[in-house]
């Protein structure tokens, strides 16, 4: 049997109502698209329902009992998220998703005055394996400020090519932004090591932890990051909420991002002053019920244990890599050693387009993603336009991987590939 799995997986799966629904033809759901979005346990849904049915009110501003309950629930969620990444509570900013968090970082660095400001002659370094959400904000920033965008290339086995790190990270570097875990290749990057180099030249390190936070224990104090982003819907929480964590000294120096609502200290028609962190970065009514859901989500993950979840992911990933290796004509894009990677596995099958692979799998109830997974440059690097991606999570079973491998065999025969 497969070692390292979460105990009582069958019982745990019952926490997720959607996993017991059936699809067209009465087929059971085999959900292998968790890197795209994760499924939600009942406790998250219930926390949101309880909030909406019993405690709904706006936060901060309301002095009545419902307002106090709602504010307490909202701020308790901030405490839970802070504990989840080992940060002080006021360094945790709620955004709408990881993309907004990364754009917040890029825009405030463009608007900053003084040493933080990114301007002409400065350089921003990213990597070729970034999700579009960690590419486009930096393209916009460098276009708008006259700074230069540079990037790490990739090796043939899907690692960052660090051979030219000394040419890339220089005195001109103001920001290094990179993903912790690739959503396409699965690669886990040596973030702390790169951060050390970046800090030597005085650059700010922005880490996209969208795929790391669901799978790995994240401790911001040892991560090397100055700013770190992740998204609620991938950590068994709801959509509509993301997190930007930042070091207090840095956040305090950055100018506000969006204006309005509760981000102010005082407003006059001529000018305004701004609230302290984290509120300075939270304009308007925040995602209240979403925060309540996210709080329940990270509690759920912490209760299972991020180490145990990581071990489970590694076990399933190893099992999947083994199974995929048996499918003729299948090539995995990215590292082949499960201990070195996350749980998203993108692959190609000779002679069948990823759309068609996904379609055949879907007819068997198996949900995977086909396309460029918002990582077009990484696909281009490997000479492909798109790929099929399976991605597991804490509820994935070896039997589901078996179903995938069988489904891929069937796909080949459906398209008459001998």
């Amino acid at each position, binding site marked *: 049997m497969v070692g390292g799995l979460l105990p009582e997986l069958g019982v745990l799966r019952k926490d997720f109502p959607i996993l017991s629904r059936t699809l*067209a*033809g009465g*087929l059971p759901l085999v959900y292998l698209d968790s890197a795209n979005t994760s499924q939600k346990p009942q406790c998250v849904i219930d926390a949101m329902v309880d909030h909406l049915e019993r405690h709904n009110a706006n936060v901060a501003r309301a002095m009545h009992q419902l307002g106090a309950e709602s504010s307490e629930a909202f701020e308790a969620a901030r405490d839970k998220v802070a504990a989840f990444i080992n940060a002080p509570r006021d360094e945790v900013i709620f955004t709408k998703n990881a993309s907004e968090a990364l754009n917040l970082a890029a825009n405030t660095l463009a608007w900053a005055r003084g040493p933080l400001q990114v301007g002409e002659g400065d350089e921003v370094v990213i990597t070729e394996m970034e999700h579009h959400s960690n590419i486009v904000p930096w393209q916009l920033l460098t276009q708008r400020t006259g700074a230069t965008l540079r990037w790490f290339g990739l090796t043939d086995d899907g690692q960052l090519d660090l051979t030219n790190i000394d040419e890339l990270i220089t005195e001109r570097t103001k920001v290094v932004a990179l993903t912790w875990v690739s959503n396409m290749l699965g690669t886990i990057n040596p973030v702390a090591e790169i951060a050390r180099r970046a800090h030597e030249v005085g650059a700010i390190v922005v880490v996209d932890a969208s795929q790391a936070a669901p799978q790995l224990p994240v401790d911001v104090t040892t991560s090397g990051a100055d700013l770190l982003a992740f998204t609620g819907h991938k950590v068994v929480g709801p959509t509509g909420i993301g997190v930007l964590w930042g070091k207090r000294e840095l956040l305090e120096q950055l100018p506000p991002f969006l204006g309005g609502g509760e981000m102010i200290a005082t407003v006059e028609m001529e000018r305004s002053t701004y609230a302290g962190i984290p509120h300075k970065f939270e304009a308007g009514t925040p995602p209240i019920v979403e925060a309540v859901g996210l709080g329940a989500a990270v509690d759920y993950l912490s209760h299972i244990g991020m180490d145990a979840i990581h071990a489970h992911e590694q076990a399933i990933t190893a099992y999947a890599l083994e199974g995929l290796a048996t499918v003729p004509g299948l090539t995995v894009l990215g590292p082949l050693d499960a201990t070195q990677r996350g749980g998203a596995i993108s692959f190609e099958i000779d002679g069948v*387009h*990823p*759309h*068609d692979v996904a*379609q*055949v799998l879907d*007819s*068997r109830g198996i949900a995977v993603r*086909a*396309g*460029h997974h918002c990582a*077009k440059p990484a*696909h281009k690097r490997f000479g492909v*336009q*798109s790929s099929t991606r399976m991605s597991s999570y804490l509820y994935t079973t070896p039997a589901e991987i078996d179903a995938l491998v069988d489904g891929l065999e069937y796909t080949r025969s*459906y*398209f008459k590939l001998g």
Partner: protein
Amino acid sequence: MSTDLDTLYQEIILDHYKNPHNKGLRDEFEAEVHHVNPTCGDEITLRVHLVDGQVKDVSYDARGCSISQASASVLTELVIGMPIDEAMAIHENFLTLMQSKGTIEPDEDVLEDGIAFAGVAKFPARVKCALLSWMAWKDATAQVLESNSLEKETAR
């Protein structure tokens, strides 16, 4: 279990996929366009050559799934040699079929091999695949017509 799949992957479609017609870019054209399906990256470069109100040639280079490839092949088969307005009517007909969610019976007299795509209309995620080349063709044709009428204006 695979009945549904067979509605989508009609023999005609798989044939066009394996042996696409009119593929490859040719030199005579008035407009070239490049379209992508942003969600999956499938892409097509398509050229149109219009002479005297006729679709003289449509040539293309494309990368994509079976549905998008077969659809480009069927498109060229249908419209090459047609008067432009008739080709536009076919385009309209195909578009309506694709957006029907499977509620419309396709007309073989108009769409010929294109009727095989009736099943695609039941798969909303694949409709964009089937339409990629058709949208590119319409765009390119419109560009030529527009620049022609501009030329006339300036000639006047």
